[in-house]
């Protein structure tokens, strides 16, 4: 039996030739790093669960992608993070929503799955739980980048109810 890993870093409105070369290159490098992280686990016989967490962690840390650091900004300029993880062996799963301070949302989701009796935790409670199980906490501004601020400002200039439903930035 051979292992396989597939990842995505989001879909959206970017068109061929329209993505700035440096953004194109950085995105591809981020994907390659995530694949490498997962491959380091799968190639020697590690579990799919460990591999998807490892790959997701790399992408969460990469500001090119809308997850973890580099996430899009909510209406008032803060970052709210959601994540989920699921194990196909027994359909155990864990999820978090609306987190503001946990550096590794996907690891928080795994903690919910493995250390609690629950499936989904949200908002302050989710961050409180992640803190209690020892996951690193950071200031919300750590997740924020100038480019995401510019994108938010662009959308807000169109009106207070402007959402990015075309997935131009998400």
């Amino acid at each position, binding site marked *: 039996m051979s292992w396989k890993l597939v990842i995505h870093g989001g879909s959206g409105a970017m068109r061929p030739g329209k993505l700035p070369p440096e953004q194109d290159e950085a995105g591809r490098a981020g994907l390659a790093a995530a694949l490498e992280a997962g491959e380091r686990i*799968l190639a020697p016989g590690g579990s799919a669960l460990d591999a998807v967490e490892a790959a997701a962690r790399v992408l969460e840390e990469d500001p090119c992608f*809308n997850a973890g650091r580099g996430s*899009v900004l909510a209406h008032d300029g803060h970052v709210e993070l959601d994540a989920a993880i699921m194990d196909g062996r027994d359909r155990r799963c864990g999820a978090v929503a609306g987190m503001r301070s946990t550096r590794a949302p996907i690891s928080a989701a795994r903690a919910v799955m493995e250390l609690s009796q629950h499936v989904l935790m949200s908002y302050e409670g989710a961050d409180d739980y992640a803190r209690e199980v020892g996951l690193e906490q950071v200031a919300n501004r750590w997740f924020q980048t100038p480019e995401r601020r510019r994108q938010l400002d662009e959308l*807000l200039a169109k009106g207070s109810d402007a959402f990015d439903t075309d997935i131009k930035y998400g």
Partner: protein
Amino acid sequence: TIGAVAVDAKGHVAAATSTGGLTAKRWGRIGDSPLIGAGTYADDRAAAVSATGLGEIFIRAAAAHELCARVRLGGAGLQAALDAVLADIKQLGGNGGLIAVSPSGETALGFTTPGMYRGIASADGRKVAIYD
């Protein structure tokens, strides 16, 4: 949104999805990513799935679970099941993409948007892409 699906050497699958959601979101809006069965699902009887796109529509389509159900109960091939779910999402007015892997090592992906950051790795090597 980012996501990963994998099958290991023992034939077990897993899925992970993480996101900051939608730019300018308000009122505690939550999309499909943390909703099991919508943006994320894994079942050794079918597949592991991660979604990216307009979350409200992926929730309405129960996208990730629907893909697995088409494989497990309907006998569809992985790519055919994925394509059918994406077609449903498009018909509902949504856009986005899906990635999937089966316990047998079959992989599938697709997107209705102009591009999707994506990559695949196996014992045969690695490949990344953004556009078709």
